[in-house]
């Protein structure tokens, strides 16, 4: 795997002697690699924010808040919730598209979440290694500049495929309100050829939300865990773009 970095020995040498801090102890110079370019980072955080808004508002559309009192014309609770959902959905769609476009012009890490190199034996060997690492069967994690192979697989299915599914079904459902002459219906109306009853599309869209909830949980957990355990920066990398290796 080209992204695998050999354990630190060859990266360590003289870097360690770079600087000394105030107490006179020598600081450790750490090699870092620029992995996540700015558009990737921006897309990541915008998408993360949109997905949170979409999950909360989406849940409230399926299970609305308790009835409000007063005149119907004085309140617009459901309207605002639905507006937030639709707005966040469109933002997600735009930034998801931007992210796809960036995969064509960005560095090779930006393409990682859009494919799984099924044909490469080495890839599957490393997936197995990662599974063994998570099953506590390996003592040392391997280091990767971009996503590790297991993470790449999870990102491709858990994020790219699921979010694409949510965007497609989401626009199909949105087209119901926009009418059958809308561009949304022209582009996404075919969803109703698969599920003629829109109730089924609602159900799948709903299940998709829960699939993303599970993805988000695993995503955040593994990011934190790897940040601590695999001696390479994960969380701060998505802010600075740099991946640091700490051995």
């Amino acid at each position: 795997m080209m992204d695998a970095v050999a354990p630190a020995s060859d990266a360590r040498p003289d870097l360690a002697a770079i600087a000394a801090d105030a107490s006179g102890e020598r600081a450790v110079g750490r090699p870092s690699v620029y992995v996540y370019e700015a558009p990737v980072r921006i897309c990541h955080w915008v998408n993360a924010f949109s997905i949170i808004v979409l999950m909360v508002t989406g849940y409230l559309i399926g299970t609305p808040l308790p009835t409000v009192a007063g005149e119907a014309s004085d309140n617009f609770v459901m309207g605002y919730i639905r507006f937030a959902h639709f707005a966040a959905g469109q933002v997600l769609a735009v930034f998801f598209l931007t992210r796809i476009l960036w995969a064509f012009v960005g560095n090779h890490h930006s393409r990682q979440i859009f494919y799984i190199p099924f044909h490469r034996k080495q890839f599957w060997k490393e997936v197995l290694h990662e599974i063994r690492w998570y099953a506590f069967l390996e003592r040392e994690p391997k280091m990767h500049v971009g996503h590790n192979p297991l993470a790449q697989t999870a990102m491709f299915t858990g994020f790219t495929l699921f979010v694409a599914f949510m965007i497609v079904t989401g626009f199909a459902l949105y087209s119901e309100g926009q009418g059958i002459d809308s561009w949304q219906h022209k582009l996404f109306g075919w969803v109703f050829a698969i599920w003629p009853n829109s109730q089924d599309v609602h159900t799948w869209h709903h299940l998709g939300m829960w699939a993303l909830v599970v993805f988000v949980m695993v995503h955040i957990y593994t990011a934190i865990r790897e940040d601590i355990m695999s001696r390479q920066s994960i969380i701060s990398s998505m802010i600075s773009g740099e991946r640091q290796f700490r051995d």
Partner: protein
Amino acid sequence: MGAATETFYSVIRRQGITRRCFHKFCSLTATSLGLGPLAASRIANALETKPRVPVIWMHGLECTCCSESFIRSAHPLVKDAVLSMISLDYDDTIMAAAGHQAEAILEETRAKHKGQYILAVEGNPPLNEGGMFCIDGGKPFVEKLKMMAEDAMAIIAWGACASWGCVQAAKPNPTQATPIDKVITNKPIIKVPGCPPIAEVMTGVVTFITTFGKLPELDRQGRPKMFYSQRIHDKCYRRPHFDAGQFVEEWDDEAARKGYCLYKMGCKGPTTYNACSTVRWNGGVSFPIQSGHGCIGCSEDGFWDKGSFYDRLTNIKQFGIEKNADQIGMVAAGAVGAAVAVHAAVTAVKRLATKREDADHNS
């Protein structure tokens, strides 16, 4: 019924209108529409020569609720639709003829109006056991349907049965009841779903075809756009309560008395395409939501198999016990959450153990 091809003019004359009055009507129509001087004679000519569209109306597996609805049409009156606008040559439920005489009309229409008659089908054919679950005139209905469909101009699939399958096609569908468009694939089919469809929608479709001599514009699923392009929800008079967030929570609560939105009571208005909230029922008197009950989605595909009529979220049967998306999702999220917690705990313990080991080695 049957016999010679009738024009609109002959029907008009039969109803006691003189030729003089007929021409007055034509010129008045042309004038009021602002048409040119020649228009009056063209209208007269069209009415004198244009034959009424022959209609064959057949019944498969069904409950006749479509016919019951149809005969209650107010605009136009069903009397006008049946006796003036179309030439209803065959309808085994309401026709006078019976037995061999009735069946002979089918053959006659096929021969005489090849490619010109409309085949209106109420109900659907069951295909299991060679179609023996619906025998009509000594033959499986599916054979009769295929025979008459062959020479038809177009087919109208009345109701949820003919359009989607309805209750007889609900799981497990023992008779293998099958909607018309899955059996007849080489003819234009108009789906007019509903259980039953609204009377005015039915006569409206018939009126369109007889007036313009072509089928109305259909949506992706084969339903006439003019009646099925919007959801009940889009035109519901309770919609302001939905947007405001005002819902009925119990059947007998204050909100129910105030006529708030029935969304939480499982109203299927948001996923149902039909004209109930605009055309309404019984001559525009009311419709289910107006009388305080949610829509059950009777014009939608497989509406019997989508769980309770009173749940907002659909039950998903594939999971053994009936659960909705939220219940399944919460269990999945809970299980993954627990797994993450356990994994984190094991990680922490392992890490401590390794550190101690390393420390022992170093000392």
